[in-house]
């Protein structure tokens, strides 16, 4: 099948790739651009390990076709830190031991960043429901929720 040339922006940089119309955005990010921070845990939009933002909207990149990225702005986990300065969420996840194996961590960080941009003062219940589409099998979510709540409090204080 003929591949299609896609021009897009990834983490602020111009990017282009050739993709089969059947390939997902996740496949294109990983296999074409070698940005392997987004993970495939299920391929059916149930686990959230492939979370990225597309024009600012949180999506499961396994449910988006690569061709849909044409002209869009994509942000992945690789674009979350500012140079060598971690995003406060990244820092808090390390400090709170909010990851064990770490495979769900990129997706959860991308998803929680999107939450805090929308709602800087979420309740614990709101955080839990926002993250209900991001599966973690290691932690029981306790330390993840605490890291998110703690980051939100710090960010509110700083603003």
């Amino acid at each position, binding site marked *: 099948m003929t591949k299609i040339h896609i021009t897009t922006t990834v983490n602020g940089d111009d990017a282009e790739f050739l993709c089969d119309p059947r390939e997902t955005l996740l496949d294109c990010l990983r296999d074409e651009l070698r940005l*392997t921070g987004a993970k495939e*845990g299920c391929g059916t939009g149930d686990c959230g390990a492939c979370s990225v933002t597309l024009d600012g909207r949180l999506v499961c990149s396994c449910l988006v076709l690569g061709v849909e990225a044409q002209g869009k702005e994509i942000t992945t986990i690789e674009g979350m830190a500012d140079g060598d300065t971690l995003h406060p969420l990244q820092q808090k996840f390390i400090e709170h031991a909010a990851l064990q194996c770490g495979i769900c961590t990129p997706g959860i960080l991308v998803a929680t960043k999107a939450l805090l941009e929308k709602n800087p003062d979420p309740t614990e219940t709101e955080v839990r429901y926002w993250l209900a589409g991001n599966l973690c099998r290691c932690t029981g979510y306790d330390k993840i929720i605490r890291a998110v709540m703690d980051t939100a409090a710090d960010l509110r204080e700083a603003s």
Partner: protein
Amino acid sequence: MALDSKTTEFKYIGTRPNRPDGLDKVTGKALYGADTFAPGMLHGVIVRSPHAHAKILKIDASKAMAMKGVKAIVTRADFASDLEGDDWDLLENVMAGDKALYDGHAVAAVAATSQLLARDAAKLIDVTYEVLPHVTNVDEAMKPDAPVIREGAANYSVPEGMHPNVVRHTEFGHGDVEAGFAQADLVLEKSYTTEAVHQGYIEPHACLAQMGADGRGELWCCTQGHWFVRRMCASLLGIETANLRVTASEIGGGFGGKTTVFIDPVALALSRKANRPVKIVMSRSDVLRATGPTASASMDIKMGMTKDGRITAASGVFRLQGGAFPQAPIETTTMCAFACYDVANVHHVGFDVMSNRPKQAAYRAPGAPMGAFAAESMIDELCRELNLDPLDVRLKNAAKEGTKASYGPTYPRIGLVETLEAAKAHPHYQAPLKDNQGRGVASGYWMNWGGETSVSLAISEDGTAQVSVGTPDIGGSRASMALMAAETLGIPYENVRVNVVDTGALGVNEPTHGSRATYATGLATIQAAREAITKLCKRAADKWGIDADAVVWEDGCAKPSGPNAGEFPPLSIGEIAAEMGSTGGPISGHFEATPNGHGGSFGTHIVDVEVDKETGHTSVVRYTVVQDAGKAIHPAYVEGQFQGGAAQGIGWALNEEYIYGSDGRLQNTVFLDYRIPVASDLPMIDTVIVEVPNPGHPYGVRGVGETGITPPLPALANAVAAATGVRLRGLPLSPPKILAALQSKSDG
């Protein structure tokens, strides 16, 4: 400090520093199984049986092979043909022989220049089957008319007259159970079932294999133990073990399910045939259909208790279905079921049964949760009938140092009583409950494991240390090893780098399994550091011209042991290391052994649930884990293990189950239908770390990973019984089952 002494005062151990691999894991840089590429790499796809049980009459790959871009196709004929025993079973599971034994069983594989092309080619591989009758339920599989999975699979232990699907049998105990039941004021006999569940690691199995025409191979894969992978792959491919070098990627969860192989030998076989690197990544439905779930279980428990709560006798029959292969964990199910208690009269019978399901694999305390569900539910039933407090009854019967365990040995120092006392004293146990809420408690046990271990520690020129370990870091173990090395050497945590090295760099290491990494790799790290210290002291002694015995190591420095040794200013590790090239060469320490001083870990959980009587839905409203860690090296990751074990146990108790249709096909092969707990399903999970030091570890460590999954199953069932007044003896406690039970109670 004498190097053979027990340490109880710590500078670094017990603190909570940032994990060394944290940065890579929050920025997306860490490389997992599917995250590497090789020049000329092909993609492999596996063809799987759609039938639960079928003869494979013919595999026609001609159409697929004719496709442009298809480079290799393998079937069973491409693997070793002279295997026996466990290796034969392993190969039979990795690639079917004459029969497909379960829905999802691999029958062929193809490698092509792209993933999409490989998928298209897999569809063109034409397999002709003769469908056979199947059985997927453990009790059905034991019945006289059940289809036979494999003739001759049973070993010597099976009593005569049993169905050929019963492949192993165990029976043991002590005392006289009939006499014990006669002493009881109440004897109950009930049957319990648990369903098969999956480990549910979020990272599907993935590997990248490269095998040359010279019989030498390289394999990158996500695994809990790359030496195991090396041995298994070498055997299945018929090559020498040392000719295969295996590198463990970062691992995205395993929980026991990544201690064996599924795709790795297939990728190597495809690579050998195509003479190019081959990557295979499983889909989630492949993971659920064809990698190890747990066994399912059907159990009968009989227990007697006096009016004041003394258990007089206990007996259990445990029937486990472990898929189409022998190996359901009947030993650990029977060993752990009554292990918490000092019971004079106890008897266990276990049956390992084959059925048309995938080969069971280890899952966190493999075998223990099923038995605990039955035994701890039974204790709760007795407590309710006799109107006794379930923690008081457990305290009254608790095993302690010197108790003859239900499975035979005499316990050394253990911490069950301490967990029960801490649970009883916890505010949770006294907190008021609301309408439709109920509280359940249960205890659990896992014996833990030592296992083959090899560690090297090398001192760098600037006095920092690098530790080479062979146990993949699945949940913060680099941090724990660095803490133990820093403590022993007396240098800052940041000055230690821990590397998980490949199979070419160390002797055999068992996987990160059996709750052994912090215990065994930790012990080896400490001993390797002590060996390095001995050498560092010798260099100082030589420099000072005194006897090496007259030098002690304190706070990262060599010092004269006392005034008689002479007056010399301390020599720091950095000063000694800076000169090591000219004072005798590199300084390192090494340790290898199969340590067996692993101490068992006991835990007690308290859970409050609220049951919606209209929908049958159970919410977990409060949860507390109390467990003995021996010594918590990095308490945050110990808490994490407690919390993760509890969450997995909650899933097993409430939601998760393998659902097979009447056609023998797995019905729930995606995460939407196989529902593991999500963030909104759970409350915070409180933890209490009890520390009863393990005499078998220099710093007192007990493994903590596995025990935490055993109490939740019965604790949840006991809580639901308290909330509703109905006792459910089959997991999961799903809403339809609870509704039906409530309905029959109101009808009754």
